[in-house]
């Protein structure tokens, strides 16, 4: 038994918030910081490539090594402070637990198969399927490893215990590169899906 007047009220009320303000702010600040870190990082990589390829200068930031290092070591503060705020709020508000956990292998398998068949939908923006949960938890972990391996490369004497944890200075560079690759891979899928489901992009901008 519904009161028609009541349901009209509900229609006038703004739709439920999918993303609180703190999440949207940290998301976009992170997007900017990450892009600066990645583009300047590619320029730094080019000074002494780990693999037999370099990044085209047109997609790098900083112009030359010193410029790129300046950008990298300026944006790192933005990335880390914003990242800590995001993780702290994500844990404190219970959002991580509600949205990203639990993840079951069977669920991931079923949702991956559904996605490959083109049957995985994202009708309710406030609920993540298992593949999304896995990707979001995965990229948070990759970001954490990225920052820690970066610190290990930046301060291999003062933070030598951390550097040792990554298998030494030279290996830490490979870990740092690998974490970047995971994040860029995530970014490609993430942006493609946001374009395919524009409602999700809108929700990340205005909250619902």
């Amino acid at each position: 038994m519904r009161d028609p007047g009541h349901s009209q009220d509900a229609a006038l009320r703004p739709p439920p918030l999918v993303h609180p303000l703190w999440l949207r702010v940290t998301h976009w600040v992170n997007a900017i910081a990450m892009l600066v870190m990645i583009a300047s990082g590619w320029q730094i990589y080019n000074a002494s490539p780990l693999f037999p390829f370099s990044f085209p200068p047109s997609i790098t930031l900083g112009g030359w090594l010193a410029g790129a290092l300046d950008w990298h070591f300026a944006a790192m503060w933005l990335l880390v402070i914003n990242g800590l705020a995001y993780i702290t709020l994500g844990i404190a508000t219970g959002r991580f637990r509600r949205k990203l956990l639990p993840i079951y292998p069977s669920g991931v398998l079923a949702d991956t198969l559904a996605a490959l068949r083109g049957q995985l939908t994202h009708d309710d923006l406030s609920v993540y399927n298992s593949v999304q949960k896995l990707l979001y938890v995965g990229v948070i972990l990759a970001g954490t490893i990225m920052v820690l391996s970066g610190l290990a490369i930046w301060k291999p004497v003062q933070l030598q215990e951390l550097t040792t944890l990554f298998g030494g200075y030279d290996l830490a560079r490979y870990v740092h590169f690998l974490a970047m690759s995971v994040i860029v891979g995530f970014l490609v899928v993430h942006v493609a899906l946001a374009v395919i489901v524009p409602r999700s992009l809108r929700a990340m901008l205005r909250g619902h």
Partner: protein
Amino acid sequence: MSRPRKPVPGVDTRYFLNEAARLLPDPARRRFLRGAASLGAVTLLTGCDITDSQTAQTALRAMSRFNDGVQALIFNPNKLAPEFPESALTRPFPFNAYYDVDEAPEVDARGYALEVGGLVENKKSWTLEELYALPQVTQITRHICIEGWSAIGKWSGARLGDFLARVGADRRAKYIYVTCAEGYSTTIDMPTALHPQTQMTFRFADEILPRKYGFPMKIRMPTKLGFKNPKHVVSLVVTNEDRGGYWEDKGYNWFSGL
């Protein structure tokens, strides 16, 4: 950095955008378009304009100075750089400089004298023979280049901290300004100069320091990036004035600690 918009064959861009906007609810549509317009404006700004502008350069320089302060703060004068066994030595040890290997400065051992100046009691200059007579220590440490690569080498020489005490340097001064035979220079913070592993190096891999690695003397600091380890050193000045350095003046971070 404005790009002429390339028409997509078969797509009327204006029609396409209007249709996209029509699919959104009305108030949302206006907000979306307004948002897209401001986002576009910001994107235009962030192109070459922001990265090349004087404002951005000033902000980046300020951040680099801020990072100097942070690095000085986390520098632990008692924390030693890891040392390695002989088996870990990188062979051959890479040569790297802003000149080619055959252009490396040639310093005449007989005419050589290390000048010592600034805030020191004893300003006498030091011949190579006198320097070789100082108590010598050896380290096998990792040399890390600002470019990212690293190599493990074996360096022997006298502790710079001991030498500074011997010449009566004012160790409360802020810096040591180092100059080199061919004009290279760098400024080192005093805590790093006094670090137990900071070394006036005369030997590399048990041989007299070869020309390409900085004959007759380099300052080896395993707590700093390679470019802060000057080769062919001819003078040390104890000072409270930051006199910069070859790469520092070109934009490399001043402290560049490890």
